[in-house]
């Protein structure tokens, strides 16, 4: 019988939530690494017992953790992230050049085929790779040394490389996103990159459709259609069907086209989910109502429907951060997300209804789910 394991990173530790395929009764395990900021945890698709976790603290810096038994026990892995060669500079908030400095790991993306290989997206924006289960890390410098990189500026959260997608049909091809540089694609395993931002418009920039400089919040793809990507940008929900060469807006009549998360139903490649957020200054859900929006046409027909059954529809003022939504591989698809208020919600029916798994965790930074047999 299948079961699911939800990996939750919070401001003050990590939690592992377990259920059978019904996804109604949950066991809560944690906190792991209590007191530490857990930006991201993710399991290896090649070996679900292999988990990686990015643990950090303003006091103690970056620590990496690895589990080989599904999170029952953990061991510290390597935490040296050295930029390759001279780091160079990017643009600081005041417009001055600022040296690239490693601050923290935002996102971990294990290889689809090798449990010992994992990528790390870090702040200041760079991509690292480990092939020894996180013991050592080497930068893939092609992205940080891209000709446009000296002109990148941080978003409010920092100059972070926060999204890494591996093409399941071609592991040499990957997509990444950086706030606020934009989206990039490699065809050679990370050696070289090209910006894929044509069609994005950011009206806070002097050149609204510049090649780089866009604050991309999150990208998602369905494994069966890796040429189709969905994007939640700072403003605008976007879609491409040619691997990022051209994007078009699909925000339609969403109550806000600002948000952080976006994800794709495992069983329906055209069914996508977003959580609109009121911005720029508020960064909580509109109208005090927590609503996930679903489109069954990949946003193409402006058929966004509010999914609110089981979610608070009054006096709710939470945010859902970019890595805090995930889908499982069951049918119907389970959808999960965590909030800044410490709730983790699950829908076992593709978003039709929701129930909290937990209500009172520390602020949730990330949610991932593993479907286990």
């Amino acid at each position, binding site marked *: 019988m299948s079961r699911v394991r939800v990996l939750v990173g919070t401001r003050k530790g990590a939690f592992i939530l377990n259920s059978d395929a019904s996804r109604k009764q949950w066991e809560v395990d944690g906190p792991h690494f209590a007191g530490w900021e857990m930006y991201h945890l993710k399991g290896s698709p090649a070996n679900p017992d292999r988990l990686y976790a990015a643990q950090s*603290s303003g006091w103690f810096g970056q620590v990496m953790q690895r589990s080989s038994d599904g999170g029952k026990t953990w061991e510290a892995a390597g*935490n040296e992230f050295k930029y390759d060669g001279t780091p160079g500079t990017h643009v600081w908030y005041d417009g001055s050049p600022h040296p690239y400095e490693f601050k923290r790991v935002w996102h971990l993306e294990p290889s689809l085929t090798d449990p010992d290989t994992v990528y790390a997206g870090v702040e200041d924006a760079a991509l690292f790779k480990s092939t020894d289960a996180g013991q050592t890390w080497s930068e893939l410098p092609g992205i940080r040394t891209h000709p446009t990189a000296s002109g990148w500026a941080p978003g409010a959260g920092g100059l972070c490389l926060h999204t890494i997608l591996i093409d399941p049909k071609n592991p040499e091809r990957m997509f990444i996103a950086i706030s606020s540089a934009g989206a990039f694609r490699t065809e050679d395993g990370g050696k070289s990159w090209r910006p894929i931002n044509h069609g994005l418009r950011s009206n806070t920039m002097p050149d609204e459709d510049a090649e780089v400089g866009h604050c991309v919040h999150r990208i998602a793809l369905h494994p069966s259609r890796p040429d189709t990507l969905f994007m939640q940008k700072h403003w605008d929900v976007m879609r491409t069907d040619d691997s990022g060469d051209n994007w078009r807006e699909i925000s339609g009549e969403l109550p806000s086209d600002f948000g952080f998360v976006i994800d794709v139903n495992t069983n329906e490649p055209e069914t996508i989910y977003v959580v609109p957020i009121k911005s720029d200054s508020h960064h909580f859900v509109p109208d005090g109502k927590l609503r996930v929006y679903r489109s069954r046409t990949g946003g193409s027909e402006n058929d966004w429907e509010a999914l609110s059954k089981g979610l608070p529809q009054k006096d709710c003022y939470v945010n859902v951060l970019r890595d805090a939504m995930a889908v499982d591989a069951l049918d119907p698809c389970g959808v999960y997300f965590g909030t800044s208020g410490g709730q983790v919600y699950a829908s076992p029916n593709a978003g039709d209804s929701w129930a909290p798994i937990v209500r009172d965790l520390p602020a949730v930074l990330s949610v991932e789910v593993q479907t286990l047999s």
Partner: protein
Amino acid sequence: MIRVVLPANLQTLAGAGREVELEVAGQATQLSILDALEASYPALRGTIRDSDTKLRRPLLRFFACEEDWSDASPTAPVPDDVASGKQPFLIIGAIAGG
């Protein structure tokens, strides 16, 4: 034997208690104490000082015999009472008020 007191988050990371005991070869200095600490507890590498520069992380402080040793030379001998194990070498996370 040198005694070192760890802040709570590093205790859990190291899998150790509040105080650990270390054998330090040669003269006891901040540098040699931290080298011995990291050798005994590899999980602490990079969390107290930068792995490359060996500079103290900004929000950590070092105390010995009720004196602030945070900005002392890393190679300066620590007080005799610390070197003899009579007093601990304290690693403290900066405390935010409010």
